[in-house]
């Protein structure tokens, strides 16, 4: 019996994709630069099927890659070393909502925005809000420790996960954490969130729910240049205000957005716009708006528009969240970087990034989470043009080096995946990486769960192979 036959026996014929044309959609995630073709894609309906799939893969010596909606931007859900993609979108039930204790239990395939929609009548929402929230799944959010524009106030996914149920790479089902968030011993939930699907497959997540604020005010600061906008961000942070979001959109992005269906009436002659959102009780939000206005104007804002109603507020955000989609007008492919720098360094780093883009003659634009120092330099390109592709990658590496030299890191919310694994040494020594690999070896000594991610390609040569070091002798269960 072939592996595909075995998988069909587990999930039924309609739950396995193995024909060449069916697999095209799974060759990449949101990062089209890195591709890998799986031998099959399997769509389980429950945790027992996930366990059986994992055991079948193990018995056949085939690696497996968990995948949600495939919206990731670092090649994290791509079968870079072949194997089976375990696509979890059919496990999309909201199992329980406890509004008084403010938590919900969900399956990994629940779409991020769908959870918030389903509980909005209770006055609650799920805070992590990646730009892809209309499509991305909570399982994917857990794997990547996803952030979003509102991370500034609400934190990333790790701050909103209380417990997990997962299938370990040996097929064992285990529960980590609890509905109260407490756990006896090591913070295994904290270690698994953001592990990019390399430690096992999450089959259930208990997530924290947050109260919908009484009032939300969204502002648009219009600046002549992106550097002025960055200075305003620094001034707002230093004033002690904690806005819900502080986002910058540069001029090139403004043009792309205004030419697209996401047009929000952003002024085309502005050098940058700064979206500031504050929330809380009505009176407090109103006073914060005035403080933001004072600071923005003092830092050179031409104008500060406050959204007059919900419709305008949604339009501001559609421009921000639709920016990546709007880039599709500039070129067929988009390479989104995700470095983070100390916030105080934003003005100088932005200038350096624009200089790098110009020097490599690339269409580079910036739309980013300024309040967190989380940059998203976007390079629009055509991957069929090999010469341009080389320039894109070289510029990307130079951007990452510049950010790391400024005290930053290479990824704030997209993950390392296959994309940035060879840049890990910009930040980490061999000993640092080895310390991370020890965690991997505790969960997945045979490196069968989403291989080829996070760690530099050369880490797993003979001398650094976990098995060669005897890590596989440690019993898992």
């Amino acid at each position, binding site marked *: 019996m072939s592996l595909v036959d075995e998988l069909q026996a587990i999930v039924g014929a309609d739950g396995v994709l193995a024909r060449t044309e069916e697999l095209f959609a799974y060759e990449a995630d949101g990062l089209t630069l890195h591709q890998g073709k799986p031998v099959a894609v399997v769509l389980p309906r429950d945790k027992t099927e996930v366990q059986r799939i994992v055991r079948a893969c193990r018995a056949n010596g085939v690696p497996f890659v968990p995948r949600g909606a495939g919206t990731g931007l670092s090649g994290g859900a791509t079968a870079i070393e072949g194997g089976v993609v375990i696509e979890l979108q059919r496990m999309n039930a909201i199992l329980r909502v406890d509004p008084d204790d403010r938590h919900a239990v969900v399956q990994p395939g629940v779409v991020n925005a769908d959870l918030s929609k389903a509980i909005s009548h209770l006055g609650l929402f799920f805070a992590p809000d990646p730009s892809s929230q209309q499509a991305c799944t909570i399982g994917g959010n857990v794997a990547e*420790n996803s952030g979003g524009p509102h991370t500034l106030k609400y934190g990333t996914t790790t701050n909103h996960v209380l417990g997990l149920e997962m299938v370990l790479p040996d097929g064992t089902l285990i529960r980590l954490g609890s509905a109260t968030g407490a756990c006896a011993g090591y913070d295994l939930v904290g270690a698994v969130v953001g592990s990019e699907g390399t430690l096992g497959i999450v089959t259930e997540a208990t997530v924290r729910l947050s109260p919908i604020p009484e009032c939300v005010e969204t502002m648009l600061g219009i600046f002549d240049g992106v550097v002025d906008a960055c200075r305003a961000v620094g001034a707002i942070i230093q004033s002690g205000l904690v806005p819900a979001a502080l986002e910058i959109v540069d001029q090139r992005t403004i043009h792309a957005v205004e030419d697209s269906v996401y047009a929000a009436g952003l002024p085309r002659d502005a050098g940058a716009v700064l979206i500031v959102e504050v929330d809380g009780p009505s009176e407090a939000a109103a006073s914060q708006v005035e403080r933001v206005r004072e600071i923005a104007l003092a830092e050179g804002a031409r104008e500060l528009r406050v959204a007059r109603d919900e419709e305008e507020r949604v339009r501001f955000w559609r421009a921000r969240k639709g920016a990546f989609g709007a880039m599709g007008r500039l070129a067929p492919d988009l390479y989104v970087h995700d470095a983070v720098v100390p916030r105080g360094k934003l003005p100088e780093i932005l200038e350096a990034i624009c200089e790098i883009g110009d020097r490599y003659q690339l269409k580079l634009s910036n739309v980013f989470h300024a309040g967190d120092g989380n940059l998203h330099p976007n390079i629009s390109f055509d991957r069929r043009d090999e010469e341009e592709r080389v320039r894109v990658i070289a510029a990307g590496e130079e951007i990452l080096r510049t950010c790391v030299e400024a*005290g930053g890191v290479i990824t704030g919310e997209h993950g390392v995946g296959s994309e940035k694994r060879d840049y890990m040494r910009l930040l980490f020594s061999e000993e640092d990486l080895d310390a991370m690999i020890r965690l991997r070896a505790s969960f997945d000594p045979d490196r069968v769960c989403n291989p080829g991610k996070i760690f530099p390609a050369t880490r797993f040569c003979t001398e650094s192979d976990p098995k060669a070091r005897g890590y596989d002798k440690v019993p898992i269960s």
Partner: protein
Amino acid sequence: MELRAALGDSAVHQEPLELEGAKLEARLSPETGEALAAALRSCSEQKLGLLIRGGASKLSFANAPCHAALLLDTRRLLAPPEIDAEDGVALVAAGVTLASLREALTATGWELPLESADAASTLGGTVAAAAESPRFGPVRDFVLGLHVALASGERVKFGGRVVKNVTGYDLNKLFTGSCGTLGVIESAWLRLKPRPAVVQVLEADALGRGPGEVLAACRRSSVRLGAVEGVGSAQRVRLELAGDETAVASDSRELASQGFVAGQAVSQPEAGGETGVFRVRVTVRPTAWREVADVLLLGGGEVVSLPARGLVLGSFPLADDADERAISSVWRLSRLAAERGEGSYVVAAAPASARAGREVYGDPGETIPLQRAIKAQYDPAGILNPGRFVGGA
């Protein structure tokens, strides 16, 4: 002695002592990360168990060590904190006390989101024990990066100084709260909190208010600490509001309409000496706080509930030579309280005799094999706080 060569004479103190039931031959007090790493390497090679201490304020927040030959004292791992007042982050060495760090921050617009009732508490010990502040919440939320010396003598770093970071595994989370069993913290990058413009304390009778009503008051947006203290008719709800003037004034008005008046500062839960006391932290469903508190109150001690955090803290006098009946009674009560709130408990302090042969961390359940695998990866010789952590890790 090999350790003297590695650390220098001034860092090895041949002063036999007994601590936590372990007879220790000497105390090591390295001053640098290099010396710390050298000591760990040497101890690993010789399989010498280490009992690790910072300010010693959390020494009894662990199981009794199964074997330990030496005391590792991290208080001399000192360096002036590197405070970035522009970004609101700070790099702090393990031996720095929270009290001195708070002092160093007074001139800035930032405050330290870590707290301890004990002035001797160090940064390293607070992070290692994940000693949660009732006011600011879990320690894990404020640790951006760690520099750690592993048992092998390797010096490694995780995370960084930036406030958002998914570069590699989040080992900050794994090491925060690992009670020194996976490595010894040299220093940490912390995220600071903006100093609030206004802090105000309000209080009201708890009696006559339903648990849901109290929980809702504690959950108001500017309330950073909401505690219920006292017994019977003396039971009070105390709220500490913090933030900008408008936010605090707005909540304050609403709470005044519910009968809250200006109050005394909330007492520091878990304050006081650690001898002759049994302290338990019960984490529960927030809505179950009162039922849980009522169970703990049966023990005749002091109970402080933090409804919005789903935390109920119990403190009972328990003599160092208490008999088995008294000891069993407080443990049973702790377990019962956790069950009532569908949560779990941790014994935060107890005489060594009351911890002997018992698991202070409650029930680790099915994760024990995984936790042991992790311990074996980072500390294969088992020298770091042996036996102190969950399941004897």
